[in-house]
């Protein structure tokens, strides 16, 4: 299988929210990296997982599929899945694929955290 062209950093934003910073491309080959990052981001107290797409180079349709799978996992843990840093093109993709109906979209981490409360 081709290697993923992505790295992901995980950090805590506060006691209840974690951030996964995406650097690179989100395609089918990013699955292991994304699920590993989610596992790191998700401890017993995590109520919200924020995915920061500010440094996203590219995402294809398989990448969107990964986000669906991630959302299901997060919902199972009673967590919100939120994204920040999307450019206009990917905001449109989230609308086209109707992911925006289940995943909160915010301009930046501060507004996302304020919304989570």
């Amino acid at each position, binding site marked *: 299988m*081709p290697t993923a062209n992505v790295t992901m950093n995980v950090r805590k934003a506060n006691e209840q929210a974690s951030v996964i910073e995406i650097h690179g491309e989100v395609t089918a080959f990013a699955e292991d990296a994304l699920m590993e990052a989610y596992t790191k981001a998700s401890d017993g107290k995590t109520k919200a997982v924020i995915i920061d797409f500010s440094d*996203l180079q*590219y995402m*294809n*349709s*398989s990448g969107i*599929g990964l986000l669906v799978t991630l959302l299901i996992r997060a919902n199972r843990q009673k967590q919100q899945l939120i994204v920040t840093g999307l450019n206009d093109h990917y905001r*449109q993709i989230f609308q086209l694929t109707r992911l925006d109906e289940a995943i909160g979209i915010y301009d930046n981490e501060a507004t996302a955290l304020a919304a989570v409360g």
Partner: protein
Amino acid sequence: MTSSNDSDPRDNAWAKPVDHLSTKDMPVGALNLNVDGRGLTGPLQGFGQLWQKTYKVRLPGVQVSPAEVVTMWKAKLPEFMPDDSRFYPSFAGVAPGEILLIDATLPGPGGGITVATGVMILYADDESFTVMTPDGHPESGFNTFSSYEEDDVTIAQIQSLARANDPVYEIGFRFMGGSKQQEAIWHHVLTQLATNYGISGEVETSKKCVDSKIQWSQAKNVWHNAVIRTTLNAPVRAGRRLFGR
């Protein structure tokens, strides 16, 4: 936004935003029902359990790149489909935003149940293309056709991430042979693709239930059910045949 979020030429692989589908400029042959004016439904909008199903065929000894496989696949997609699921691409073919009309026969009494529906090409690049379903389609979700290399062998793959769109379809998939038929369709497609390269490939299948929960709030999707609407349209089609219109 950082500079790495600037426009990428690959952005053109995505369909442009659309509220409702349009089936103007479609070739004759398909029933062309239940697509025009419909909205799109993804894996989060359907009724039934969410399944990810992956079908793969290896092409050992065939000197062909993933891009060459997908180019050929886009051109020959209708030829690879079985008789119980005919695809009719638009004149522009498999390209982002284009429509594929589908005439299918689902398992049922009297030789099966006719359904006319379609899909939209959500994404298409050199090594993959993805379709997304409209209101009323048996499934709500994505289906990705792709090719990649693994251990110096080119592989062709179909992966679906979808739910049954409404309760009628969920019953059909679970209890009336719908899932088996669907799997047989994709086995057929990949077998035909391998045959195209002179290989009698064995199709590997893996299935994962991503979400076992039923989305009861989406039961209302049955309003758009393409099987029911195709059936209700049958007298109209019969009348047209009778009176030559």
